[in-house]
């Protein structure tokens, strides 16, 4: 349930960052699935997620996500800490 809520929020963030309302992500979505998800836009995504959840990822964390599920896990972990 928590995951679903986060994915919903992430979907909104993805749509805003990529300026594309057709985007629909789930835990298995990877950068390869979304045309605009390159290394540059990835950074914008990281910053947008940080802002939304009032958290800060470490430099290493933000580089090691392989799919949306990893992002969800990182958010949950950060929220647990704070």
């Amino acid at each position, binding site marked *: 349930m928590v995951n679903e809520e986060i994915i919903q929020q992430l979907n909104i963030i993805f749509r805003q960052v990529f300026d594309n309302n057709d985007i629909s992500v789930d835990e298995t979505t990877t950068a390869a699935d979304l045309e605009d998800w390159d290394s540059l836009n990835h950074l914008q995504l990281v910053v947008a997620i940080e802002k939304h959840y009032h958290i800060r990822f470490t430099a290493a964390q*933000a580089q090691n996500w392989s799919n949306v599920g990893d992002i969800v896990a990182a958010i949950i972990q950060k929220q647990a800490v704070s």
Partner: protein
Amino acid sequence: MNIPDFNHLKRNLKKVVTGMPTLRMAILADMASQFITQAIKGYAIEYGVNFVVFEADYNQIDRQILDPNSELYEFAPDYVLILRGTERLTKQFYKADAKTTFADAQLGYTENLHQTILSSISHCRVITNTFIELNDAVFGNYAAKVPSSLPFQLKKLNLGLMELAQINKNLFLVDIDALVTHHGYRYTFDSKIYVAADMVFSIDFLPVLAKNICDVILSIHGKFKKCIILDLDNTTWGGIIGDDGMEGIQIGDLGTGKIFSELQLWIKQLKQRGIIVAVCSKNTEEIALEPFKNHPEMVLRLEDIAVFMANWENKADNIRAIQSVLNINMDAIVFIDDNPFERELVKKEIPGITVPDMPEDPAEYLLFLKKLNLFETASYTEGDAQRTQQYQEEAKRTIKMQKFANEDEFLASLNMKSVVASFNSFTIPRVSQLSQRSNQFNLRTVRYTEEELNAMVNSDSYFTYSFTLTDTFGDNGLISFAVLKKINDDILFIENWAMSCRVLKRGMEQFIINCIVADALQNGFSKIQGEYIPTAKNMMVKELYQSLHFISNENFWELDITTPYTGKKFYIKRV
């Protein structure tokens, strides 16, 4: 008006830019510059300008500038932005052996880059940045006493860059150090994206940086603010003059008066720099005037206000009235009002005008306005300071005119004199400024740098004119110039002619043409040729040559001066 976020700027890139004026710009950076480029292009579109950008590959400043066959020179930009990161510079400093001369070496390097660009593209403007004066905590605060410390060398370098920009008219700075001081390095720098992509600016800071770069470029291009219009109650002072009375409004020591005193001090500085200050307030005029005349703690006085509009009419109408007295474009005006309703009304009714969305708390006003960098300029001369007085004189003239039976009688009474001279070292800075500033009375909108004007003085193929105008009300200063190019022994071509709109309807146009005709005849020419190149703003001179009896010949206007020339009567004496 506020600063939009980076996503907004990115979305701007999808907008249709056809019809927007285009500027060619090259971006050379020693850091990852993709986001910066997007932000700059997006901000330019926000301003209604299309930047065609050549973005060099990562860290190619030297190669692009020093190789004469590089893509940079092939692209031939009007503006080159050289962006250098303090982070890379710091590493360079740590590796350097000669630390006490590091700043000097960097200044030499910057000047060399600048000169190399100019030697290939002589009209090019080069913009580079100051460095962030962050103490690297190697010597701590003791660094002040150590010439070989990074903090000392950074300060020296920044000061040296300012001096370099003062000497080199085509070199401009975007003061990143000042921006970072304002926002804080913790805000402008995001270590995560620095590590991941070698970007030295946070995503939130990109729009601020892009705005400042656009401000510098567009003000060079002639787009900048000339006037600030102030609301009074709860904007210029605290409280409501009509209710609280002169003793009750907050200014100076009373209540939150400090806020408004400091705001007024700042506006007075703007006025002294040449920004016109006007008032637009919903008030009874006598009541609104009283603090300006009699309140001991008011900083702004009546002599600081070029046009004073206090009545109960719609503010948009009043702003239009102010604009017509000042004769400037709406996009050169900033309107400050604490009331969101009035702001929305003015924004809606007057496209082009800048209306900052003031913070709710007046204590934030001044910092907020400074952050917006509304009054960027690309030139400053001593004469700028007298502008308010000139507009006040203009308002007096407008009133006096109503008392004369006809225009001729009025003009004759003004006792107008004009000093007519070729360009010289005194007039060239003002002529260059006029060529950059005037958009309305500007026949071909050719913008001249001081260097270009200097070159004309020493050339046989140019005849140059500057005109001043004085009258019984005062001195308008240098208000017009004309550049004439010798096409052959018979024909003189008006390469450009611009005039300040302050002196319209005074017979100046006729006077200038008569001067030109008289001199041309003496030098054996038989024909004066002119051209009108339309822009979005110079409609007012579309019919000018026709009204001066020039004859249309395809795209040009021609005046045969072998037959005696008679135009309209004028009342200006040549001195």
